[in-house]
């Protein structure tokens, strides 16, 4: 097949362009720090960040993995809970009318405000971080999957009605398969949010325990030691984690869900 190869070449070219922008920004950053003689505690040079990152590679790698684990559990829980909620919503317009406003409410609550509450209820620990991550990444799953389950082609619904399909059959054989592509769309948004949620959670939770150090916890510690260069290396690690999570979502969608997502319209971007 010719087309995927060409698509890949094109995206490769675009990757070059964005890479060029990155290099340019880093150069400006370096030149600015040197010329303006900026204190390293305010803004360290990119070289300095890189060397600190290398020196702290063990701590960073451990923090990366700890946060990755929390974000994956958080995302996994949002997918499971969000899909179940969406299925409930899809079964009745009344249930939707009653509960959907609160789902939007969930979206608007600042997570920083409830993180201390979660610590009060669930204590300092890994699972509290997972819960913060889950709460932050839940909404896109619920809204996308609900939309997917509801917006089924009318003719297809009629086809099932003609066969006198049960509600369960319509759900299992029509609604859920046609919502898979919406789930993937939701997961793409939630992947980044789950990472943010995990880091925010760690900033509150990891603070209290010495044995648990995710990226958020590590950043808080370094901030107290005024290690700006180390914080920036953790920021880079966080960004990499966000990208990695998104890549894993995309890759697993392509490998596992291709049957349902192919031709759904969002594969070519």
């Amino acid at each position, binding site marked *: 097949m010719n087309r995927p190869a060409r698509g890949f070449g094109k995206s490769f070219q675009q990757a070059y362009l964005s890479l060029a922008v990155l290099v340019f920004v880093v150069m400006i950053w370096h030149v600015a720090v040197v010329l303006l003689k900026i204190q390293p505690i305010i803004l360290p040079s990119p070289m300095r960040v890189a060397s600190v990152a290398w020196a702290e590679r063990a701590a960073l790698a451990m923090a990366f993995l700890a946060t990755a684990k929390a974000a994956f559990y958080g995302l996994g829980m949002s997918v499971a809970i969000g899909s179940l909620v969406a299925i409930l919503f899809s079964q009745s317009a009344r249930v939707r009318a009653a509960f959907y406003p609160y789902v939007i409410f969930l979206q608007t609550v600042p997570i920083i405000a409830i993180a201390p509450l979660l610590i009060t209820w669930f204590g300092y620990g890994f699972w509290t971080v997972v819960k913060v991550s889950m709460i932050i990444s839940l909404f896109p799953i619920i809204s996308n999957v609900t939309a997917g389950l509801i917006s089924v*082609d009318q003719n*297809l619904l*009629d086809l099932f009605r*003609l*066969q006198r*399909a049960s509600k369960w059959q319509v759900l299992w*054989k029509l609604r859920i*398969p046609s919502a898979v592509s919406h789930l993937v769309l939701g997961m793409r948004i939630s992947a980044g949010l789950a990472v943010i949620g995990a880091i925010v959670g760690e900033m509150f939770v990891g603070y209290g325990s010495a044995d648990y150090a995710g990226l958020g916890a590590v950043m808080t510690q370094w901030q107290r030691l005024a290690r700006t260069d180390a914080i920036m290396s953790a920021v880079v690690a966080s960004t990499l984690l966000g990208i990695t999570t998104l890549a894993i979502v995309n890759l697993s969608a392509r490998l596992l869900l291709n049957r349902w997502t*192919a031709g759904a319209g969002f594969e070519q971007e």
Partner: protein
Amino acid sequence: MRKPFMGSVDSDENTSAASIHVAGVSVRFATDRWVLQDIDLSVIAGEIVALLGPSGCGKSTLLRTIARLISPDSGTVTLQGGNSARRSSDLAYVFQDATLLPWRSVWENVRLPLEIGRRLDSNISSTRLITEALLAVGLMEQDWRKFPRHLSGGMRMRCSLARALVTDPSVLLLDEPFAALDDMLRTRMNELLLELWQARSRTMVFVTHNIAEAIYLSHRIAILGQGKVAAWIENQLPFPRTRQLRSSMEFAQLFGQVSSKLAEVAT
């Protein structure tokens, strides 16, 4: 016991056509917008009836009412004979577009009605039913594993027909089934439909706005206008119908008759 799809034409109780009786059916969409007004219509078992009319005349609504996708505001629709008027699969509907499930292969799409009707009890017989339906519409084995997005429009429509036929329905309802296809393909699909009818002689009602198609396929043509059956036209053209028939004198005469009636209704 089920008869194989390509079985001989017979009047066996298990596999016979059904007649359709529409009595005094009215349907309205808004409070005072009547789409169908007091329609009476009977289709004899084994007959092919074309519903023809200008767009917005309610012909699709009538077909959907017969299919019980719409419940009429007054009047009744009854199916008599056939396997059993109650059995879900006794009536099959073919939509304007193929309406296939994109995540299912050709084979799996055709299997869908059997799955929904929970009639997969014996794998061997369902495999046979699906195979027969696919072969009957001219889909060859190399296409059975393909997904709808890899099929041409004509092949998708064939797949849709196979899905309608796999349960061996006694009534086949078609809602402008080939409107999206080009003329060549449309002609070929019309021939296919006639072949299928000749093998089975099931009752068929189809909606079209193509006069030639209505004449080529039907025993009778109902011309609908403003929610009523404005005229019935008997179609005496002999069966089996061939491609040559389309260029015959009788065909042209009937064409003229139908189109002038249609023009009358439209004004």
